[in-house]
């Protein structure tokens, strides 16, 4: 055996355990899910599956509930990621300008990010509580509302409040990534532009923003994929209510599968999410693998 082939064999042996695990806990399940999505499978009678062809998919795509859920999920994704990006970028820039206490601010950002998602959701649900919550108390004390409001009983308000909780939890992620990227940018570029008479805003939009492109992209794609399949936050804050007002695509899949027992339909749904997120993954990998982006 040549040295090269032996090396390749060693490599294969080193990768093998990982491959076996991935095969078992990811590849096999995702293929089974794909397979199940063509059957009328249910939780109660797993054995008597009836082959349906594309019926689960056709059913879903012609169901207004599905489309309303897609629209809601996209709204959630765009608004929360959009807010997180704008706030994150602003805060990253703020830290980079080193005002008094900037180190404290940077450390503080870690906290909301490190608080578990379920704890975040539980906390914010209590903040939004109609009778005793801090949101009502605060707004009444500042005279912004006259009496306590049952915030989570209004579908659109509830959706936006879940977004607010999500922003609190996830915005620091973007701020920290962007701040780290900002810190690596050469200072002299900025100074040269300042000497040439560029004002702060121009230096931000014309110099730093283009240089941050790859960092922003990474943060955006990761967060978009995550937000698109939000589940935990919805589960604890609203449980999809009121009146399906906060049911997102992952939550609908959960309901279909585990509350209604429609395994096949749930599988089809989850496969649609996979398809979308895999599409995002391809974009993600392509951008991550461009040599200039690895230097981030």
């Amino acid at each position, binding site marked *: 055996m040549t040295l090269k082939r032996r090396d390749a064999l060693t490599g294969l042996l080193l990768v093998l355990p990982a491959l076996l695990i991935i095969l078992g806990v990811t590849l096999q399940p*995702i293929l089974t899910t794909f397979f199940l999505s063509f059957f009328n499978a249910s939780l109660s009678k797993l054995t008597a599956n009836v082959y349906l062809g594309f019926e689960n998919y056709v059913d879903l795509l012609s169901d207004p509930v599905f489309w309303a859920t897609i629209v809601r999920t996209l709204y959630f994704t765009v608004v929360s990621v959009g807010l997180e990006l704008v706030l994150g970028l602003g805060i990253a820039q703020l830290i980079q*300008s080193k005002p008094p206490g900037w180190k404290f601010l940077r450390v503080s950002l870690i906290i909301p990010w490190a608080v578990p998602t379920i704890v975040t959701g539980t906390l914010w649900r209590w903040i939004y509580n109609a009778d005793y919550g801090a949101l009502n108390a605060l707004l009444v004390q500042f005279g912004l509302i006259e009496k306590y409001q049952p915030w989570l009983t209004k579908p659109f308000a509830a959706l936006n409040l879940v977004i607010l909780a999500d922003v609190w939890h996830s915005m620091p992620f973007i701020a920290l990534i962007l701040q780290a990227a900002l810190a690596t940018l050469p200072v002299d570029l900025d100074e040269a532009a300042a000497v040439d008479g560029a004002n702060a805003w121009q230096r931000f939009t014309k110099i730093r923003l283009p240089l941050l492109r790859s960092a922003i992209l990474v943060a955006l794609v990761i967060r978009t994929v995550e937000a698109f399949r939000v589940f935990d936050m919805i589960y604890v804050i609203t449980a999809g209510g009121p009146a399906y007002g906060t049911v997102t695509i992952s939550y609908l899949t959960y309901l279909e599968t585990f509350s209604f027992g429609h395994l096949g339909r749930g599988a089809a749904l989850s496969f649609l999410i996979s398809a979308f997120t895999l599409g995002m993954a391809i974009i993600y990998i392509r951008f991550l693998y461009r040599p200039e982006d690895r230097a981030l």
Partner: protein
Amino acid sequence: MKRSLHRLLLFLITIPVLLFIYLPVFYLLLTSISTRSEILSTPIHWIPQNPTLKNYRDILTPGTTTSEVAKTFKITLRNSLVVASSVTVIALIVGSLAAYALSRIRMPGRQTLLMGIMGTRMIPEVSLVIPLYILAARFGMLNKPPVLILTYLSFALPFAIWLMAAFFETIPVELEDAALIDGCNRVRTFFSIILPISTPGLVSTALFIFLSAWDEFFFALIFTSTVAAKTVPVAIAEFTGRYVVDVGGMMTGGVLAAIPPVLLSLIFTRYIVSGLTAGAVKG
């Protein structure tokens, strides 16, 4: 003069940001040390007049009068610790071996493999859960910690491989070439040359895996319903009973669940930031 005015202005902007970050945190802490009657008072008692550690006592040293959820909370903390640590150790060992091979050894299809492994990170848990549930039920593994350890590897392992591969690529090849020429084999080179200088990468990877395993809710919700394997996030979600909500207990549970990840992140901030820039995912 203009410069100090500018700094003052910047400082004034940091205040609302800090308030946005800390108000919910303080509210969580204050509610956890409030009595039930103060929690349920209008107008609100921002600062509890009779601060109490009863909620903490109920969870940490449960008596006969404490609620069932509070009683079992400590066990769920232990379950979370067992699951998150096991996942971290397994993913770190299996993952760094694979990452080393994928980033260093020339073999057919390694680029495709790395991409494929990365791609699996984008598969949502919902797409895996049905077949995994069926399998777990068939093998009698529901409600047992191993089922969580195994299923958590579906996100932890690709994650470890990705982060460690990114880290190994920053180590100059010349280092191991010398060892390889001297006749060390791959495995020995890995353990004696690469691993000792990889501590920063390993720490940051371990942190991210531990934090995401500690945070995981969906698999835990589906696969565990008894105290034998239930993790902290599920326990917290269960504080909201059908009829009564033990808000103080719930918030105290929240504080206790948040302490390990927050402390770890604050101690290892440097590693968190370097891990984030390598493309970490924990949301």
